[in-house]
């Protein structure tokens, strides 16, 4: 009956069979929906695995390059956090993951389906946040621990390294995972605010790459002071263990400042999501 080879003949219309009826929309159900959305895109897998591989490979490279204590090595190079330098790469990937999770909906028009299914809108933002935080916090904390342990295992063949039980080390290792999750949330918030993928990516890279350089290097002393409060440096004061710290914020204050940035970004995102035409 159908004239097309791939599309089969449509059946007669039928109402939903019993047990298949629509239930009230709840945050829990929206989270379930966002969970399916997250895992049914190839880009999710690609970006997330790139971040994991990047963290592991860079940890081993750094460990290998610093296996012998030579006069070339700075204190920074042998600090516990030095083997987690893969976070430079991972923060770009995780940020992009956060951006794409939101802007991908605007780019394809999916957002209209989403907002017809959840017309109150804000549950979508919270659900995406729950899914994103669950996935990135879990994967990035685990990969930070694994990368650290593997790198130290490699190092221990040549010199004394660090263990997770050394003072401050656990904070730095888990902190790296937390840092990546928090900056990824800024990426997601920028996705809501900017909506276009290229625009949101540019905004994100500006926040984590351009602004720190601009304030940290180009604007003199007052710039440096501002730079310490930018998301990337404030977060780094929590996730690094450089001994003669160049960061003036204490680790926990730094974390608090970063959380503040995330809260502001999400508040703006929620505001524009509620008000703007989709």
């Amino acid at each position, binding site marked *: 009956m159908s004239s097309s080879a791939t*599309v089969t003949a*449509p059946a007669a219309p039928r109402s939903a069979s019993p047990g298949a009826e629509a239930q009230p929309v709840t945050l829990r159900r929206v989270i*379930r*929906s966002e969970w399916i959305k997250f895992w049914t895109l190839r880009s999710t897998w690609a970006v997330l695995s790139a971040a994991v591989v990047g963290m592991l490979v860079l940890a081993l490279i750094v460990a290998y390059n610093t296996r012998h204590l030579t006069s070339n090595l700075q204190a920074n190079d042998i600090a516990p956090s030095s083997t987690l330098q893969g976070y430079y790469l991972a923060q770009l990937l995780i940020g992009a993951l956060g951006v794409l999770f939101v802007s991908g909906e605007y780019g394809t028009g999916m957002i209209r389906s989403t907002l017809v*299914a*959840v017309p109150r809108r804000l549950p979508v933002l919270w659900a995406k946040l729950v899914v994103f935080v669950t996935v990135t916090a879990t994967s990035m904390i685990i990969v930070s621990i694994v990368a650290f342990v593997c790198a130290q295992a490699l190092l221990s063949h040549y010199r004394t390294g660090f263990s997770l039980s050394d003072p401050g080390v656990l904070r730095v290792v888990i902190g790296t995972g937390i840092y990546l999750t928090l900056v990824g949330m800024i990426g997601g918030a920028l996705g809501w605010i900017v909506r276009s993928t290229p625009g949101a990516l540019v905004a994100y890279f500006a926040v984590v790459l351009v602004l720190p350089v601009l304030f940290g290097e180009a604007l003199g002393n007052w710039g440096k002071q501002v730079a310490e409060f930018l998301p990337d440096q404030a977060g780094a004061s929590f996730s690094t263990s450089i001994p003669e710290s160049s960061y003036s914020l204490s680790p926990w204050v730094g974390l608090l400042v970063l959380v503040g940035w995330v809260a502001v970004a999400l508040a703006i995102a929620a505001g524009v999501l509620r008000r703007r035409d989709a």
Partner: protein
Amino acid sequence: MIEVHQLTKRYGAKLAVDNLTFTVRPGLVTGFLGPNGAGKSTTMRLILGLDAPTSGTATLNGKPFAEHTRPLHEAGALLEARAVHTGRSARNHLRVMAATTGIGRRRVDEVIEMVGLADVASDRAGSFSLGMGQRLGIASALLGDPQTLILDEPVNGLDPDGVRWIRNLLRGLADEGRTVFLSSHLMSEMALTADHVIVVGRGRLLRDQSMAEFIAAASAETVRVRSPQARELAGLLAGEGVTVRDPADGMLEVEGLSSDRIGTVAASAQITLYELTTLDASLEEAYMSLTEDAIDFRSPAGPGAQAGVAA
């Protein structure tokens, strides 16, 4: 039931929807007609809460759409541009939609079957043809077994089989007592599908009446006459308020005179008639003349203008 009251939407300087008031009743297929840019899509977006009105209200089954606890059960929507992530398979897209309202996989497979996408349900939606994309959109609209269907240009890109299928589907849904509201810019398609018609142009309401009334009102009667003395007859019929065309040799199309009158004139002049037929007015023409003043994107008039555009 959709109730739109003094609805207005302004985008910057452009008034997309201008003080629209109408009701779409259950149990009927209601066509929403107008040229491109008349504000049909915007009105549908306002009803679904995707856009906020500048003023006025739109309610669905008695409440603003966003206030319903089971939105997909209240309204199923097919929106003009594709509203599907191109990287996700058809089945996964429907699972995503279904999950928000606790609908299981069985219903997902059921609607896939219903729209005839069973063989391609695992393919990425980005690889779909326009017609397949429309079927996926319709599957998505049917998912929650909705009381109201809001479909923007649903026959776009469908093959003749698909067009016939959707016509029957919509008829069946309306007969079950549901509200069916679909837009189109083609009168000919609507005439076959809709019981009631709402016509808009430049965001304003032009007609809100039953399809039968619209057709009757639109009918400027045309009479086709075949005669070996067609030219002679044409001279006799010509007069004030009468238009006579001669589309073929020995044939006339007369507007403004009844067939009785033409027959009488011919008889008194002893003119032989082979045929004297009253034609149904072209619905498309009636619709075009109704919306003529309201077309936003008119094509350039005449060959000169066209050449100008090309150059």
